């Protein structure tokens, strides 16, 4: 068998095998909307841990980490820090959300916002913003999957058909499994992915340079300063890294699909217990970087698409079957998180936009039908974005982060601060999102001020926070405080 047939055959075997495993939990009974989307609120400790970990280690960790290491150097290391900090934030926030969700039958992040502020339209706005920023994240997964198929076919399948294949695989997986399928297959994905990144992350530098340290010494000699901030860039300096770490560690649990998981946990203790062990998983993020750095030293000519660094170096050094194994692991790392994102996004739209506006009072069956139709629509939108507006994977992730982190003051202060008001939440959110759009669209990210280069999302978050606090202080009354206390009780 030729290399490309071998590689592609292995990838499809992985994908089909995983899809079959994903179908098993849903086979015995017909799933309700709640079961399809929140997993029936019955996930125990380990399953919940795997589903959380499964969402974190995505196409971005696999391909984006190595791509940024290849192209930018030092700034990539921020990725090592933020996850661990995010879990500390989550340790406090998630257990506070989970009992409210259980008591009042909340299933999504906009449900929570609507409930806390007693405002239907604030919930709708949260849902619309959430959907808007989940799309770049979904685009990231589809782009990753497309890149994998393209490389594994040794260029025989060009970019656009590769994306179409990726689209078909993801949509089929979502239809056939649902959230329980995502959880059970996340275990397979995590295992193959860890084996692949650890093996190649250690083998490649050792093969070419004798050791990991040897590889870094060689890189430092060839490109002095590349491995510190700002590395291969002009603006991604210490102030950028500090502001990005603040933004991403606070924003981590503001992704709408992560709230869905805190609603699916059995009790707050599961969430607290998970928070302890999740940081350990984070160490795996360094291996793709080692591959990216080795690729930078070894691959000539330079790559046009840095996100292909991982796949390209494996393709150059190993036979087709090994590329197929990496591609298979990578395909799962893109497909399973993509499936989860699509489920969360279609749920947000059906329940919190359609169900609260034009579709008020529509039956569960109608909503379930719409949710399933949306799977196709959302995947198609992300596919169109991936083809017509490509961008580096880390950039897509950071844009999404800037957007969803604007929920932080509204949700977290809303949970812990009695004086937070609806008008404060509206004002802060609108100011924050407006600034994110304005700064990102005008290419003002990072934002230069007083010799610093701040992450645009961080600048927006600071303004959002100030507006939220001031307006809440001005508009809160004994009546609003009383209502809030009841909503949280």
């Amino acid at each position, binding site marked *: 068998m030729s290399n490309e047939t071998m590689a592609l055959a292995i990838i499809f075997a992985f994908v089909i095998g995983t899809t079959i495993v994903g179908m098993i939990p849903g086979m015995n009974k017909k799933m309700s909307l709640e079961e399809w989307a929140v997993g029936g609120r019955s996930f125990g400790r380990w399953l919940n841990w795997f589903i959380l970990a499964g969402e974190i280690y995505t196409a971005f960790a696999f391909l984006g980490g190595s791509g940024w290491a290849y192209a930018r150097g030092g700034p990539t290391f921020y990725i090592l*820090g933020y996850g661990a900090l995010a879990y500390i934030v989550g340790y406090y926030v998630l257990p506070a959300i989970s009992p409210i969700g259980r008591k009042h039958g909340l299933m999504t992040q906009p449900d929570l916002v609507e409930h806390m502020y007693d405002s239907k339209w604030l919930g709708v706005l949260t849902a619309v913003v959430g959907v808007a920023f989940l799309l770049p994240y979904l685009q990231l997964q589809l782009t990753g999957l497309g890149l994998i198929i393209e490389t594994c076919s040794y260029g025989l399948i060009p970019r656009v058909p590769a994306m179409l294949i990726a689209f078909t695989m993801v949509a089929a997986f979502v239809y056939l499994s649902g959230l329980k399928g995502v959880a059970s297959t996340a275990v397979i994905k995590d295992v193959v992915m860890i084996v692949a990144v650890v093996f190649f992350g250690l083998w490649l530098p050792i093969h070419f340079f004798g050791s990991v340290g040897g590889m*870094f010494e060689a890189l430092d000699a060839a490109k002095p300063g590349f491995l510190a*901030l700002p590395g291969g860039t002009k603006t991604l300096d210490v102030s950028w890294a500090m502001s990005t*770490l603040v933004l991403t*560690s606070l924003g981590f649990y503001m992704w709408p699909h992560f709230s869905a998981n805190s609603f699916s946990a059995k009790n707050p203790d599961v969430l607290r217990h998970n928070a302890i*062990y999740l940081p350990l998983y984070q160490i795996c993020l360094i291996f793709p970087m080692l591959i990216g750095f080795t690729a930078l030293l070894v691959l000539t000519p330079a790559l046009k698409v840095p996100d292909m660094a991982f796949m390209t170096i494996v393709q150059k050094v190993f036979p087709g079957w090994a590329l197929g194994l990496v591609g298979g692991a990578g395909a799962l790392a893109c497909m399973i998180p993509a499936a989860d994102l699509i489920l969360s996004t279609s749920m947000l739209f059906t329940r919190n936009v359609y169900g609260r506006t034009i579709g008020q009072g529509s039956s569960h069956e109608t909503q379930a039908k719409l949710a399933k139709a949306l799977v196709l629509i959302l995947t198609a939108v992300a596919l169109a974005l991936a083809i017509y507006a490509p961008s580096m994977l880390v950039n897509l992730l950071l844009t999404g982060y800037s957007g969803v982190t604007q929920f932080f003051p509204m949700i977290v202060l809303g949970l812990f601060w009695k004086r937070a008001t609806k008008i404060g939440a509206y004002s802060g959110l609108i100011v924050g999102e407006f600034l994110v759009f304005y700064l990102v669209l005008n290419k003002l990210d990072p934002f230069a001020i007083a010799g610093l280069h701040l992450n645009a999302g961080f600048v927006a978050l600071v303004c959002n926070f100030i507006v939220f606090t001031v307006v809440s202080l001005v508009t809160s009354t004994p009546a609003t405080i009383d209502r809030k206390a009841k909503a949280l009780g």
Partner: protein
Amino acid sequence: MNPVKVILTLIPFVWTIGMLPFVNTVKPIVFGLPFLAFWLCCTIPIAFICLSILYRMDSKNGQDS
């Protein structure tokens, strides 16, 4: 709020974000990693230890009962 818990919560943030201006250097290479990467990797065990202690303290206080 218990001051021990506040300190345990803050340590990883100070380590990772607060110290960043002082650790932005390639040399010395520690355990094969550039110094900045090594420093940021340390966030992971530090967060694990701080969270383990926090979890123990909270379980003892019967947070979930």
